[in-house]
């Protein structure tokens, strides 16, 4: 069991999500930075999609009541076990009764606390992911609170824990320049606005969470905002309401929308979006669909190189 002594700002149980419920209006949810979740699980010898704790900006304090291997990945948060500093992105054996204390992140938003055996909550619709708006999945469908007690699964005989070189970690590190393909309504923006979108910086506002990230920068209103019929929207869609300020739809996204979409974040850069924090300056860069798929393949082959 893991006893939550202090839950941080917003800590939820996440795995790789539950796609397939779009017709019910339910977005897939899942880890905001799935690369970090998968790496953390590999470090402790779990299957890559095993449920772990996703911590937001501030980690928290957790008492491990059974002996486990832990690893903390994602945004670097200063961590200690029984007062001794823990190296980020390394597996560590922890004795029963030990307290893991995880501080705040200085760069990036989300860290993952992975434990051997994983967080064992009853799957809902095939996934342990918490979906905060509907209160489904995860631990009672909500962010963790002080006093919660989370069961840990039996150690998986999946593979021995691995270690990751600094060079490999650097190649998979989150980007501040987000690559995008053209959105379905890209043509509803002037050439000038499409150019401004990729040549001027956008700042992440305080309204940035698992549902979406509101950005602030050069206004790029579309020419036909009022006439669109609501349609399905993809993860990472960059929609532009009449204010002209872009919004990136994220893992707990609305499933349909009526604002024109200038762009869509490429799959390979979605984990980076999960590490953008309020105040961050981000830039966009156009790539073709072919390039986007090639970048994803490259990222996956890097992952295959380190995962068991």
């Amino acid at each position, binding site marked *: 069991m893991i006893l939550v002594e202090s839950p941080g700002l917003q800590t939820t149980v996440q795995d790789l999500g539950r796609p397939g*419920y779009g*017709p019910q209006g339910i977005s897939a949810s899942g880890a905001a930075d799935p690369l970090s979740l998968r790496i953390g699980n590999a470090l402790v010898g779990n299957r890559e999609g095993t449920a772990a704790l996703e911590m937001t900006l501030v980690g928290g304090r957790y008492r491990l009541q059974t002996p486990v291997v832990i690893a903390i990945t994602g945004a670097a948060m200063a961590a200690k076990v029984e007062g001794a500093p823990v190296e980020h992105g390394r597996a560590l054996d922890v004795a029963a009764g030990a307290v893991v204390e995880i501080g705040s992140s200085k760069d990036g938003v989300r860290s993952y606390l992975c434990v051997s055996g994983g967080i064992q909550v009853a799957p809902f619709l095939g996934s342990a992911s918490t979906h905060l*708006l509907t209160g489904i999945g995860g631990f009672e*469908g909500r962010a963790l609170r002080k006093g919660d007690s989370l069961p840990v699964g039996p150690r998986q005989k999946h593979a021995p824990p691995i270690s990751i070189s600094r060079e490999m970690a650097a190649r998979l590190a989150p980007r501040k320049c987000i690559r995008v393909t053209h959105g379905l309504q890209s043509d509803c923006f002037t050439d000038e606005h499409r150019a401004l979108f990729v040549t001027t910086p956008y700042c992440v506002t305080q309204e940035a969470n698992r549902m979406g990230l509101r950005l602030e920068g050069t206004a790029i209103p579309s020419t036909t905002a009022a006439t669109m*019929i609501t349609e*399905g929207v*993809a993860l990472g869609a960059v929609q532009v309401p009449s204010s002209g300020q872009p919004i990136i739809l994220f893992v707990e996204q609305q499933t*349909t929308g009526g604002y024109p979409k200038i762009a869509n974040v*490429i799959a390979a850069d979605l984990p980076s979006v999960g590490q953008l924090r309020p105040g961050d300056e981000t830039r966009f860069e156009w790539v073709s669909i072919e390039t986007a798929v090639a970048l994803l393949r490259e990222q996956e082959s890097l992952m295959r190189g380190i995962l068991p």
Partner: protein
Amino acid sequence: MIPQFAAASDRSLLVSLGSGISLDTHRRVLALSRAVQTDPIPGVLNIHPAYCSVLVVFDPLLSTHDAVCAAVIERWDRASHASLPETRVVEVPVRYGGSDGPDLDDVASAHGLTADRVVELHSSAQYVAAFVGFVPAFAYLAGLPPELATPRLSTPRPSVPAGSVGIAGAQTGVYPFATPGGWRLIGRTPLLMFDASRTPMSLIEIGDRVRFVRVSEHA
């Protein structure tokens, strides 16, 4: 009717089945959605049906836009000739007006009607759930009597209580969760629109026919 395809992202494709909101396009969306659900396409992870389109999401490591496109066309050819199964009728009890429907009087005066007449019109129509989207269990209902069509509020409310029944343009619907919202609120239902422990979780599903039934405060 030939579906039109457009890449929405490196892992999704928008299939357009018409250009406007009508019962015909809705039937096509429903037919294609059911066909893709009953005969899954390899690599496809999810679909998002809407008024006249279906967004198809796939794993780009397992498939391509072209392969998904071909598989959709194959299913569309079969689906467009098949007859649709009978749809359910869902009755939704509503307490109209007062604190449950703070915009009822405004909607009435915007159209020169009495509040009572608005309720009568709203609760006598039969609606079709064009799709469920935006948030879980939010059914977009088509079939609002034209004399009730009212634009959204110019400033959305920061929070709309769950169960609120609203009007936005020619659509009506029920907020399943307390969320921000700009629809004109005319009433509220005591029913849970979303219940994770119920099958189906969403009280209203795509294709359902819906009726609103006026109930008194104490019902």
